[in-house]
Each structure stands twice: as C-alpha cells, then as structure tokens.
C-alpha cells in the first residue's frame, strides 16, 4: 500500500516538474523579450484590446503557479491552476483556428495552420497530464504528519 502511494507521488512530482519547466520557460521567454511579447499580443486577432493587462497577467500567473508548486501544501492547488491555465491557452488556440478573422503567425501556407495545431496537441497533452496527476494524487493530511489518510485504491 505504502509503495503504491509512493509511486503515485513520484508520478505527480514528475508531472509537476514538467509544468514547472514549461511555465518557467514560457514566462521567462516572455519577460526577456517583453516588448516584443506586448506587440505580439496587441497584434493577436482576439485579445488585442486587452493586450496591456494580459501581457502582465500571463507571465505573472505562470510564475505564481511555479511558486505554488514549490510550496508543499499548495502543489495540489498548483496542479489545478495549471490545468485551468492550460485549458485557457487551448481555448485561445481553438478560437484562433476557428473564429479569428486571420491566423496570427509569421509563416505562410500550410505551416501556418500546422504550427498552431501542433501547439494545440502539445497543450492537450499537458492538460491530460494534469488530469492524471490530479486523479492519482494521494491526498496527504495537510497539517502535521505525513500519514496518508485519504486516498482511494
């Protein structure tokens, strides 16, 4: 029983690490080229009107989730938030591919769509990972000891 819990914890931590890497990379690359990121958002066919607010909100939330992952008692919450933010990103791509007046990408022709579709598959993979992590997560007692009190078989 104990072993099973440990394996689940390892899987959860593995997925959490993947999210930490992803968000760190995503947020950092946005901040390093912040001006460019702002311009790109402003040029987005969907969110251009709120590009100023979003250009701050997106990297800040990404870093926030990373921080929550690193605090033991919040890592389960962080996984829920990762799930939510990935759903939002994916909904954004879905809207762009289907309802936007134009696809905002710098490459032409077939690649234009392929790039976004691949991006979408990537996102969906991460969403599924978050779902798996949340479902298998062995709930620890939040206060005090490490004894596992609440998990299912």
């Amino acid at each position, binding site marked *: 029983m104990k072993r099973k819990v440990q394996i689940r914890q390892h899987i959860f931590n593995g997925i959490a690490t993947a999210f930490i890497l992803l968000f760190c990379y995503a947020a950092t690359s946005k901040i390093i080229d912040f001006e460019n990121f702002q311009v790109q958002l402003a040029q987005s066919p*969907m969110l251009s*009107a*709120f590009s100023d607010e979003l250009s701050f909100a997106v990297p800040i939330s990404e870093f926030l989730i990373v921080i929550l992952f690193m605090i033991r008692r919040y890592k389960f919450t962080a996984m*829920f938030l990762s799930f939510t933010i990935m759903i939002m990103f994916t*909904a954004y791509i879905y809207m762009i591919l289907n309802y936007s007046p*134009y696809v905002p990408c710098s490459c032409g022709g077939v690649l234009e769509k392929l790039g976004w579709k691949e991006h979408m598959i990537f996102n969906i993979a991460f969403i599924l990972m978050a779902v798996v992590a949340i479902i298998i997560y062995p709930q620890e007692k939040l206060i005090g000891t490490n004894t596992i009190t609440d998990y299912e078989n």
Partner: protein
Amino acid sequence: MKTKFKIIVLLSMAVVASVSVVYLFKLSEEKMRFHNSFTRRFPPHMADQLNSLELKYNSYYFAGAADGKIYLGNTTAPLLVTVLDSSLKVTETYKIGLKTLLPAMNRPQIKVDPPYFYLYEGSIPYIYSGFIYDWKAKIMSNTGYLFSQLQPIEDNKLAVRHSDPLTAENIIGTIDLNDTLNNKLEKKILQKESDGIFETDGILTGDGKKLVYVYYYRNKFVATDGNLTNIHEGKTIDTISNPKLKLIRIKSKNATTFEKMPLLVNRLAAANEGWLFVNSQLMGQKEPEQMWKSSSIIDIYEIETAAYLASIYIDDIADHKIKSIIVIGGNLYAMGEKQITRYKLRRFLAYPRR
C-alpha cells in the same frame, strides 16, 4: 478527496476557463472592430510586396480594374488607355476614338468598368461613354449639373459627386446614361454640419455593389447601394469625429478658403469585394514612427458591418508617398510617382466575407 469530486472540480474549472476565454475574445473583438480606441494591428503576411512596373511618365492614373486587368489613364495623353494584366505586364494600349467633337475639356478623365468606359471632366457637365471592345466614345449625358468625382455602378449607371448649383454643397447622385430620367440626387448621404463644402469633401469609391464615400477630414465613411438607398455609416479607427477646419472668407476674391492647413484624416480609398481600404494620415497607439516615415498605412474595413479588420504598410516608392491605390483579384496595386507596385493580399480578402 474522492475521484468523483476531483473530476467534477476539473470539469467545472474547464468550463469556467473556456467560457472566460471565449467571453474575453468576444469583448476584445467587439472593442477592436467597433469601438476601437485607435490601436492598429498589423498581422504578418496581410499584404506581401511582389513585383513592380516602372512607368515612363508620372502622369498615369488608375482608370479601373476588372477581370484580371488594370486600366491606366494618362493625364497628359487623355485619350490613351494602357491595359495591364494582374502581374503588371503591359498587354495592350488603345486610343479612345471620339465620334463627336470634344467640348472644351482640359483634363478629361477615364473610368473603365467593363464592358463600358467613360470619359468626363466634371467641371463641364458632359459624359462620354462607349464599349471597351472598340474604344469609341460618344456623348451620352449632359446633366447640366457639375460634378467632381465619378464612380461606375453598373451598365451605364454612374455615381457622381455633384456640386449644388446654388450652394456649392457636395451631393451624391446617380446618372443613368441609358435613361437620364432615372437620374437621382440624394442629400441624405453626405452629412452636413457647417458649410457642406469643405467639411464633406472626400473620396467616392465603390466595389461594384456598394458605393462608399470616405471623408477627408473626419473619421467616417458612408456606404450605400447603387440606388442610393440603404445608407449606413462607418467609423474609421482614428478619433477625429469633427473636422478640424478653419475657413476664411476673402471678400475681394469672393472666395472661401482654408485659413490653416486642415487636418487630413483619410487620404486615399479603394474598395473591392466588400472590403474597404483606407490610407489614413494619423498615427495610432504604439506604432513605430520609423514606419510612418517610410511608408503609408492602409486600414482595412468590412463595408457591410463597418468592422475594422487590420492594417498594412505600403512602402514609399522612390521616397514618395503612394498617389493612389486600387484593389482587384486579391491584389493591391499602389501607384507611385513613376512606378506601380503590386501587393498580394491574404487570400480571404479576394472574396466577400462568408
């Protein structure tokens, strides 16, 4: 936490997340397209520069375009018509033959709307017309009214901007060359606020189905059908809703003129397949100044809904701002001093919006 509960939380979070993104999208698009606070967007590959055609003279102008052909007129050789194909190769040149003598025309202009072409000046009220098969023109109309711009609508039917004989105010009207009894004036199209002459000045254009009048000095255009009914207004994305004009009356000359150079908002316009292309003179928010020095900005709108779509840069040609534009078959052609440059527009701009 039970698995069932986790799944319920996940599902509800997914729903909330997707709905909020969709809502944000709706809100943003609504704001960008209809309540734009002057933020342009320049999507990549909206207009890609292709080839150019060098012209011998700077006197060429766009007389019309249809069926993969572009027709050029020439102000210094007013009866000469040059035909280009869509890739800017000169295919034919014609000289218009006149069956009747030309009344005192100084700078006649040509408009081509296959199978018809028209020859007119406006400051004298005659209009010649003929077929492009033989380029023979005869006088078809003498309305008595003077006019200053002409836009073909369909079979020998034209829209013109008249000048009211008494007040000199601008009025949009139509002329039916087959039956001048059908001629029409519609005072409701141009919105008069003060003088009705300078403030309503602008560009008359159209895409064959709709007529569009773009004001020079305010952020507005008016669209109407060929019968001058169904009038609706649209807003260009800048913020100049009232013309900034200072007029002065010179008594000795009995003339009214500009006291100060007016603030020009919209400089050029062209329409095609339900899309309107407007060259604006005003810089929006967060735009690189460098681009304004070396290019002209064209804003694209959907005529029917007056929605703002996107903007494109058109490079200056030999350090000169472009003189005029025409759009046909998914290409935008920009006329420079002695050169025409072709831009390939995104494919969907070649068709009316679905």
